[in-house]
């Protein structure tokens, strides 16, 4: 009895068995399947979202000329600066939300696989890197060892050597909100958030569209 003979017998047997249950149908409506899948993705997305942390929301006084500025023209500072600290850590200081592409280029040149966008630009070309919350926070604490507001700016430190090979950073800088204090001093508030994403070519190259596992917001980024 050759393999083909056995296979033919098995085929007959299995197709007969399948035909004998031809009346069986799935009772589950597709809506249940989709809803269940969405709930699952939402749970995964929440875990991913837990990897995003607000670094800072600070008031940045005196950068914009205000009524209390005595009419003096403020010094024009760079929108952001990246300085290399001893040991290879980078300190990123954000003063204005300008030129995210330049910041992205600079960070990548300094060995940080980062994608930088302004508010509302969801990482559609990135996939959140799924990590248990505890592990994620531990890793974030290593990658971003410091976040502070020196001299009213938002600043945070990135440790490139703490970034695992498969992980990249997604940095979002929020739109500024300008406020005027009672003394007339105008200030700008903004914040930066980060997420850990796959260091895929898609993410780093920013090629849309790539869906990301962001739970309820998964796949809905568009412009």
């Amino acid at each position, binding site marked *: *009895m050759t*393999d083909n003979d*056995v*296979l033919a*017998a*098995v*085929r*007959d*047997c*299995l*197709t*007969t*068995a*399948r035909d*004998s*249950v*031809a009346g*069986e*149908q*799935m*009772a*589950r409506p*597709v809506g*249940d*399947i*989709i809803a*269940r*899948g969405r709930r*699952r*993705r939402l749970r995964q997305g929440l875990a991913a979202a837990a990897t995003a942390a607000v670094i800072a929301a600070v008031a940045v006084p005196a950068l914009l000329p205000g009524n209390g500025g005595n009419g003096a023209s403020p010094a024009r500072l760079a929108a952001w600066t990246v300085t290399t600290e001893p040991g290879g850590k980078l300190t990123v200081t954000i003063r204005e939300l300008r030129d995210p592409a330049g910041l992205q280029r600079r960070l990548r040149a300094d060995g940080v696989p980062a994608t930088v966008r302004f508010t509302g630009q969801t990482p*559609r070309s990135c996939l959140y890197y799924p990590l248990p919350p505890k592990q994620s926070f531990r890793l974030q604490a290593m990658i971003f060892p410091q976040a502070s507001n020196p001299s009213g700016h938002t600043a945070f430190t990135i440790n490139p050597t703490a970034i695992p090979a498969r992980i990249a950073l997604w940095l979002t800088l929020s739109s500024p909100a300008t406020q005027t204090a009672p003394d007339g001093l105008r200030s700008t508030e903004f914040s930066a958030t980060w997420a850990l994403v796959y260091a895929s070519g898609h993410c780093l190259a920013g090629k849309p*569209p790539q*869906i990301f596992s962001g739970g309820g917001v998964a*796949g*809905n*980024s*568009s*412009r």
Partner: protein
Amino acid sequence: MRRWGMTGKQLEFTSFYAAARGDCLRIVLVTVGDRQLAEDLVAEAFTRAWASWRTVRRHPAPQAWVVRTALNLNVSWWRHRRRETALDGRDSVAPGGGGSGPDGELLAAVRRLPVRQQQVIILRVFFDLDARATAQALGIAPGTVGVHLHRALAALRAQMISAPASQEATE
């Protein structure tokens, strides 16, 4: 502003589900022999297919993907339940034709095969996948598919030879 393919994605999955669910259920039912278990497995497999639809839709045989996933889940659930509770007969061969007569013996033998061998047989018989496509569906090398198929057929051949002999002995 348009959400990326959400409507199209749902429609696509819905039509896939409508077209494939019956076949998938029946194939899994024949393989595991338990109606409720088969439905649970297939529903879970479709849920995973939906969650990974971007990948599954590009699969050369999405229906085979669902069946393979369901059969893998069967092993996982069986192991889980074995650790937790008595099996209340779930590991025993049940409906779908198993149990009596030569066909029943052969079907029971298919159900007793190791999961990989069983999957190779199922994909070959029901989806007509060749070694390469089967390898792709299972995520293993084509050569490994050949080995599993050979071993499965050897085990089934032994069953086919021994079954008539035992029947004759009892007559």
